[in-house]
């Protein structure tokens, strides 16, 4: 394999060799190489196949704008697809291969598509594949599409996120950026980031590193400009080393979120290619890219070069090649008059200069072999007959001018204007403080041209044959001049329409080298100037970002933010921890060899026959205090709170102003102007938020203070006939006798020197004590109770057992037996409400006709005819007319009633007691009787005990 490494200085370390493989073959390169430069150094021309037609493609650029050379890099879990060979730094053992081709990049079966290219214009699939249905063809299409193949293995690397504040953020460390950063760093905090890591070379970089107020971010690419000047940038930390096992290293990449008072965009410009027939062969490259390979990597991408340009900048490439001893066959300049000095210097170097000529065609099946040039008129509208000649060359360096990188400027809301000087879009105004473009990004391309650039969007084809379908605009998506013109013909005049119809600029490179050519040609086809056509929206990110980098640290154990109970005990004792309203709580405790349903059944029986211990710590605990506390709560809850005496509890329903139940809980009056509100676990945060909103925004004169104390307390619930017996063993200074301390009362006391609160409230239907102690004492008390209760058959129970117990008892659960359409009238609260004099949130809404309708779904109990048939929650009741008659909201097979029971919302259910409903379970019909929800201990003797 030919070595194309040149002599002369370069930014690679020639003293060291790195071995890598591409498509299974071993090659060598040097530290400092990219995969692209190393491949070129080894004479590898064909590296990829195009997206749609699978045409052979080579390396086109030397940077992140690369449209063609996308490869798969790495193996096993580290495999990364669609990597731009021009961006991938070479490291020892690097493994890369071509993608989107079969069996090999050199012989790709799918390339046969090329034969049908003319039948596959933009949007062809919309005009075909309708019979019998798209689905018949889609599978094939899907397999053809896509580029790389994911390995399907979880990403072993991790990613960091970093906020940063500074006075000035400078993006791009070219000459302009360096100058701006150095000047500012004298007096302000400055960040200077660049996609590379030179920072003007080792000397200057040393100097910069010494500046205390300057932070250098190498290998960092700015991604997006968001509201209020938040700039995101991706730092590629590990790309210079071979992959290493997870955890043994720092993060692979870091997503920076930088807030700067001033953002300076020194993002430079990207060279634009020229559009001519067969302009996509391997060996055809951007002139500036060739210059980079020669001067930076000491690589010549070819042995004999032709330069094709419409501006002065490409001459530098001719001279660079010439100086390093690479043959330059000719410079072909579309302009009749190139810059005088340049013309002389070119001829002086013995390079043929064809001014007023154009490259009109190329040949070379696997890679470029010859180019055809022809004389053109000054406007390059036609070619002069008889002027055609073929030049042998294996490298064609093209330059159509430069497009400033204005993506972030545009994202910042900056407006663009078309600058005829460079035939590209530049920032409309300077001194945009939020995001100011300087240097090439502002359209100041240097060295300034001696002779002006000649804007030519498309070179006429030689001969009569129509070649527009071989004149490539977007190499990444195989979009041709023909496609653009087809879009125009079919009426897609808007640049956004053209983009969507032809998919130009929608590939992984986001059209960095093709957008301006595409919109200018659309303009030509629709009789408009580029300025009138305008650009498409510059959407973030500027350059694609690994999804993992955006997820940052929110992976694995930190993927979800669950709240944890203060007790660690559960998980260590068979507790099956599950998400309950954002808290991880035990569903049940599995004993060896037990199924979940057996465990749940065991726990339920314990609660009914002996005593159960439940961790209710997630129960909301909100303290509401102040002179107006009672009035405040009275407005927020359906219930009458004014009549609640100290030491007493009352169940409460809370509505939104639309009359819908949003939470329930137990209100405790702890003393004069002192209330404790126990909300549902899921409702603790919302209810507190809700209270503050009303207090701060609506009732600002009220003297009320609210403290969210949920996290301060652990709540342990003793429930069951023996609850009192076990609690008594704690020997609290409280008389637990049922007459002294009845149901729905509360007491405050002390236990072992810390505060302790008792509530006689029950969600199980059994005699229950809710015990609050400071959260850090929860574990100790829990273990103590288990110990004391052991002789009495105490048993920890989980949420599923609790669910069975409360369903047996017919207690509703907000969000389960109610939904976004349930009012208190629908759950039997009409009478209670009518007794309350004052207004409360949501009351007015209950008077609206739809809320009063007799046909609403109302909560009732159901007793299935088949005693052991557990009704699946969500089962529907079907009316005589086949209409929906309601649905089951909660259900269980009650161990104590030894039959199936359920809660359901049934159409006008409250008026249908004793009637049957017909239930539909997977098409089968079952009958059940409507009844009260209180299946178990309807008189409440057990909890009043």
């Amino acid at each position, binding site marked *: 394999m030919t070595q194309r490494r040149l002599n002369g200085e370069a930014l690679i370390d020639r003293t060291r060799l790195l071995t890598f493989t591409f498509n299974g073959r071993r090659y060598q390169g040097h530290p400092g190489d990219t995969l692209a430069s190393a491949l070129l150094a080894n004479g590898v021309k064909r590296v990829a196949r195009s997206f749609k037609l699978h045409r052979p493609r080579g390396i086109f650029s030397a940077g992140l704008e690369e449209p063609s050379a996308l490869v798969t890099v790495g193996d096993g879990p580290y495999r990364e697809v669609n990597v731009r060979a021009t961006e991938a730094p070479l490291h020892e053992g690097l493994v890369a291969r071509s993608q989107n081709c079969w069996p090999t990049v050199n012989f790709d079966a799918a390339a046969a598509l090329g034969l049908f290219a003319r039948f596959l214009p933009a949007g062809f699939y919309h005009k075909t594949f309708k019979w019998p249905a798209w689905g018949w063809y889609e599978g094939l299409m899907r397999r053809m599409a896509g580029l790389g193949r994911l390995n399907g293995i979880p990403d072993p690397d*991790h990613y*960091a*996120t*970093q*906020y*940063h*504040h500074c006075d000035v953020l400078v993006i791009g460390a070219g000459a302009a950026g360096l100058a701006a950063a150095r000047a500012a760093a004298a007096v302000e*905090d400055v960040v200077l980031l660049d996609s590379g890591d030179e920072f003007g070379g080792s000397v200057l970089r040393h100097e910069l590193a010494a500046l205390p107020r300057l932070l250098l971010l190498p290998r960092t690419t700015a991604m997006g400009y968001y509201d209020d000047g938040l700039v995101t940038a991706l730092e590629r*930390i590990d790309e210079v080393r071979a992959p290493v096992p997870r955890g043994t*290293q*720092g*993060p692979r990449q*870091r997503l920076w*979120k930088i*807030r700067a008072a001033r953002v300076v965009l020194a993002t430079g410009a990207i060279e634009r290619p020229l559009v001519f027939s067969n302009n996509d062969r391997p060996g055809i490259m951007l002139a500036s890219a060739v210059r980079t390979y020669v001067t930076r990597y000491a690589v010549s991408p070819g042995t004999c070069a032709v330069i094709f340009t419409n501006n002065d900048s490409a001459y530098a490439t001719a001279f660079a090649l010439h100086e390093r001893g690479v043959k330059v066959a000719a410079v072909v300049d579309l302009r009749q008059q190139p810059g005088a000095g340049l013309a002389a210097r070119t001829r002086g170097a013995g390079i043929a200069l064809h001014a007023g000529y154009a490259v009109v065609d190329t040949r070379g099946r696997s890679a470029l072999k010859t180019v055809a040039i022809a004389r053109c008129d000054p406007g390059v509208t036609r070619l002069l007959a008889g002027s055609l000649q073929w030049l042998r060359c294996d490298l064609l360096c093209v330059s159509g001018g430069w497009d400033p990188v204005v993506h972030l400027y545009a994202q910042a809301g900056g407006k663009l204007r078309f600058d005829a000087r460079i035939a590209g879009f530049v920032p409309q105004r300077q001194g945009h403080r939020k995001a100011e473009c300087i240097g090439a990004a502002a359209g100041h391309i240097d060295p300034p041209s001696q002779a002006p650039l000649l804007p030519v969007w498309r070179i006429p084809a030689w001969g009569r044959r129509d070649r527009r379908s071989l004149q490539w605009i977007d190499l990444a998506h195989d979009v041709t001049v023909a496609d653009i013109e087809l879009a125009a013909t079919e009426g897609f005049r808007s640049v956004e329409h053209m983009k969507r119809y032809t998919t130009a600029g929608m590939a992984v490179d986001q059209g960095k080298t093709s957008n301006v050519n595409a919109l200018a040609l659309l303009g030509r086809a629709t009789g408009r100037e580029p300025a009138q056509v305008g650009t498409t929206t510059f959407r973030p990110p500027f350059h694609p970002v690994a999804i993992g980098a955006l997820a940052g*640290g*929110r992976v694995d*154990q*930190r993927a979800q*933010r*669950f*709240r*944890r*109970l*203060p007790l660690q005990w559960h998980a260590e004792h068979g507790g099956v921890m599950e998400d309950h309203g954002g*808290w991880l709580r035990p569903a049940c405790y599995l004993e060896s060899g037990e199924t979940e349903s057996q465990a749940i059944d065991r726990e339920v029986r314990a609660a009914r026959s002996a005593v159960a211990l439940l961790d209710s710590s*997630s129960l909301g605990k909100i*303290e509401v*205090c*102040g*002179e107006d506390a009672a009035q405040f709560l009275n407005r927020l809850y359906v219930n009458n709170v004014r009549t609640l005496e100290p030491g007493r509890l009352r169940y409460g329903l809370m509505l939104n102003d639309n009359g819908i139940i949003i939470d329930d809980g137990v209100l405790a009056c702890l003393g*004069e*102007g002192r209330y404790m509100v126990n909300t549902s676990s899921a409702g603790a945060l919302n209810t507190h938020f809700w209270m503050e909103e009303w207090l701060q925004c609506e009732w600002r004169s009220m*003297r009320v*203070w*609210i*403290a969210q*104390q949920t*996290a*301060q*307390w*652990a709540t342990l619930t003793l429930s069951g006939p023996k609850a009192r017996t076990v609690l008594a063993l704690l020997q609290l200074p409280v008389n637990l006798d049922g007459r002294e301390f009845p149901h729905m009362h509360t007491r405050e006391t002390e236990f072992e*020197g*810390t*505060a302790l609160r008792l509530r006689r409230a029950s969600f199980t239907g059994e005699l229950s004590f809710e015990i609050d102690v*400071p*959260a*850090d*004492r929860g574990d100790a008390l829990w273990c103590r109770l288990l110990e004391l209760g052991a002789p009495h058959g105490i048993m920890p129970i989980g949420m599923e057992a609790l669910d069975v117990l409360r369903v047996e008892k017919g207690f509703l659960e907000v969000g389960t037996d109610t939904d976004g359409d349930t009012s208190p009238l629908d759950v039997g609260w009409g009478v209670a409400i009518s007794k309350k004099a004052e207004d409360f949130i949501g009351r007015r809404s209950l008077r609206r006709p739809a809320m009063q309708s007799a046909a609403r779904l109302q909560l009732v109990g159901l007793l299935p005819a088949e005693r052991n048939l557990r009704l699946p929650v969500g089962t529907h009741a079907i009316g005589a007319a086949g209409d929906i008659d309601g649905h089951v909201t909660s259900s269980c097979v009650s161990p104590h009633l030894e039959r199936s029971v359920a809660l359901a919302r049934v159409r006008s259910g409250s008026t249908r007691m004793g009637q049957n409903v017909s239930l539909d379970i997977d098409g089968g019909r079952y009958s059940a009787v409507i009844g009260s929800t209180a299946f178990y201990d309807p008189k409440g003797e057990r909890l009043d005990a």
Partner: protein
Amino acid sequence: MLSGSMALERCEPRGKLLLLGDAPAVVKALPEGIGIPLQPRGVARSRGSGTCLWLSPTQRLLLLATESDARLAVARIRALRSPDVWAFDAGARYVDFAVAGRDCAAVLNGGCSLDLREPAFPVDTCARTRFDQVPVLLVRSSPERFEILVERPLAHYLWLGLCRAVNDRRDET
């Protein structure tokens, strides 16, 4: 845990007292010698008798040496029976972490969007904000040390996040 120049630790439990009420009333209710911050984000350090943090116009958090101190203070203020000052024991509500070292601000910026440069966030400033998805209370106790108070149910989640933030800076040190 330790990493490079960074130290991340869980602090010893201490007494915490949540004070609700307008500043003048609260000052009146507190014993002599205990000052409270009047300015937003302020921290008031009283000789011997702990530190008081500004949480909101009507909320302050008093940090005391021991939990019994806090309980006594609660009892004392309750005894005043003032309808305008309310005190609650918050000793078990929060868990305290501390991150110390040259990069402590940068570590916190691994999950917190605040400008923690010293001019913007000097010593004896506190702020309620968020670290990733977690509400936290930051206190800068010295140029190279922050205390982070978090509610107990999310303390574990936050700890994982802080460890991560420290680790993520290994390539820096």
